């Protein structure tokens, strides 16, 4: 019964997050002083170098507000928006490349972001926890002190700084890896996979390096605290091998808060990955957002942000649903 309650609770908060995300992306642009339609018309005119007659202008304004979903009262706009987004995943057409629908661009960009993010997060989390567990368990050893210094030095460093340093060292000084991503479209062959891998090394490394710091420090503190518990002392007196104590006693128990920590920091990791993509011109959601921002492509912007919120919320939900597998206290309460 406890498990059932837990699952229902997670689903409720999942839908609350999605609903609030949808509502924010609906009201945010409408609260702003600038009018995207006026801006767009202004840009069109300055590009064309001539002005339109008032009649044409009114026509254009009407068509644009239909496409943007800006006609009718605020309530009917909101309901229409919810219906389009939830039922049809329809974010409208892109304005920079009219009339291609926004969703098509997102579907192409999303695998890049997810691929980069899932791989790097798994690597950083696993390696960080393995190192942190050892550093916490053998906290008096010299290696543990070194690892702690590494963790402290890595943790507070922002994503963009790591990216800049990597670009500087591996891109310019050593010229091993490319500065920006260049991947030609085409069928997924073995050679193309190598190109993708080669282009992804630096962006991936940036995310891993930042993630490592947090995981090492947090795991070290947890395993150090668990090591002092009574059940560990009992196991030691009982003659349990030190390796078993570290992995099955201390490690197993320290893992739970680490999973929760990962769940809670997914939003921050995603934000960091978006920035990394922009800096490396990696063809994912971040780059899509940045180009949409500079070309004033609002439909694209809201679409990418909604999908980002949706992705983070879904990943959090999945982790939360897996959690009872690791924590028997939720299963058998």
């Amino acid at each position, binding site marked *: 019964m406890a498990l059932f309650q837990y699952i229902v609770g997670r689903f409720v*908060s999942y839908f*609350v*997050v999605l609903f*609030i*995300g949808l509502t*924010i*992306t609906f009201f*945010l*642009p409408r609260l*702003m*002083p*600038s009018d*995207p339609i006026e*801006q767009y018309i202004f840009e069109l005119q300055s590009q064309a170098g001539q002005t339109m007659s008032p009649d044409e202008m009114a026509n254009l304004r009407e068509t644009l507000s239909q496409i943007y979903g800006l006609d009718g009262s605020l309530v009917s706009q909101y309901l229409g928006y919810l219906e389009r987004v939830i039922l049809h995943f329809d974010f409208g057409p892109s304005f920079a490349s009219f009339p291609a629908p926004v969703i098509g661009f997102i579907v192409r960009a999303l695998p890049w972001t997810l691929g980069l993010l899932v791989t790097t997060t798994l690597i950083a989390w696993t390696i960080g926890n393995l190192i942190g567990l050892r550093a916490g368990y053998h906290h008096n050893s010299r290696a543990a002190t070194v690892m702690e210094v590494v963790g*402290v*030095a890595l*943790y*507070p*460093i*922002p*994503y*963009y*700084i790591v990216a*800049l*340093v990597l*670009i*500087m060292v591996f*891109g*310019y000084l050593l010229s091993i890896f490319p500065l920006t991503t260049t991947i030609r479209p085409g069928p997924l062959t073995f050679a193309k996979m190598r190109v993708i891998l080669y282009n992804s090394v630096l962006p991936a490394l940036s995310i891993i390096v930042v993630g490592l710091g947090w995981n090492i420090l947090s795991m070290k503190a947890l395993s150090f605290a668990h090591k002092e518990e009574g059940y560990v002392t009992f196991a030691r007196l009982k003659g349990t091998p030190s390796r078993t104590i570290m992995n099955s006693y201390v490690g197993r128990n320290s893992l739970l808060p680490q999973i929760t920590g990962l769940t*809670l920091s*997914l*939003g*921050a990791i*995603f*934000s*960091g990955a*978006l*920035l990394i993509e*922009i*800096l490396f011109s990696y063809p994912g959601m971040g780059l899509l*957002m*940045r180009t*949409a*921002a500079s070309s*004033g492509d*609002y439909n694209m*912007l*809201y679409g*990418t*942000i909604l999908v*980002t*919120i949706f992705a*983070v*919320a879904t990943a*959090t939900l999945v982790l939360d649903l897996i959690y009872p597998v690791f924590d028997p206290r939720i299963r058998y309460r």
Partner: protein
Amino acid sequence: MKMNNRLKIGIVILTIMVLGSFLLPLFHDADPTKQGTFPKNLPPSLAHVLGTNSLGQDLFWWLVYAVRNSLILGVSVSIFTTLIAGTVGLTAGYIGGGSDRVIMTLTDVIIAIPVFPILIVLATLVRGQTSFLIVSVILIFFGWAWGARRVRSMALSLREREFINVAKFSGSTTLKIVFREVFPYVFAFMVVDFINAILWVINTEAALAVIGLSNVEIPTLGSIVFWALNYNALFIGQYMWIVAPVVATVVLFLGLFLTSTGYNQMYATRRGHS
């Protein structure tokens, strides 16, 4: 109360950074962002400690103003987020009940929403005139949730302690208990959260500035990198333009981080002994 090494190093770094960035501008009243003040691309020398960039600006003075502005932004936003986090966390944790459930759902939602994309939208909507005020308001709006979570769990555990019961039975009002008995315990956590919030604010603004979506006319640790990238500093061999802000950022962030974890450690040991 004995200071540990982390705290000592952290405070030394912060003192140097704060004094340097706030006092040095008093001896230099020229605008560091004015272009063409000096010859372009000078190497480091006595007159220009870090050299000049492709816009004819002195890099050292740019950096000094950048550190100062980033610190001002970080501290002023963090004051608000910490106050909100403290109030909300204490309300949820100590008073509990219905308010606790509502507040916890709200914090979880805010934590789950990635801030960076939302900032990108806002920056686009107010294109060209992104003011620090707007960035600050958004950072405050999204910044309090982490702290509130921590204060709440702390207050929740305190509620069951003996001395709270003593205060309650001696007739103290809830407000008095929260301020006189619970708050002193939570205070150390709030200091740590305050410093972490400064880190987060400076970082988020810088990230926005690096891709040109904050106000890049004002020197901050991010806008200096934006101009360097914009003028292809690395490509033309102007390494100092990137290296200097990178080093300054790393040192400042290390200082903040060491101070917050050192302070936390010091309080943890003190609590253990009392």
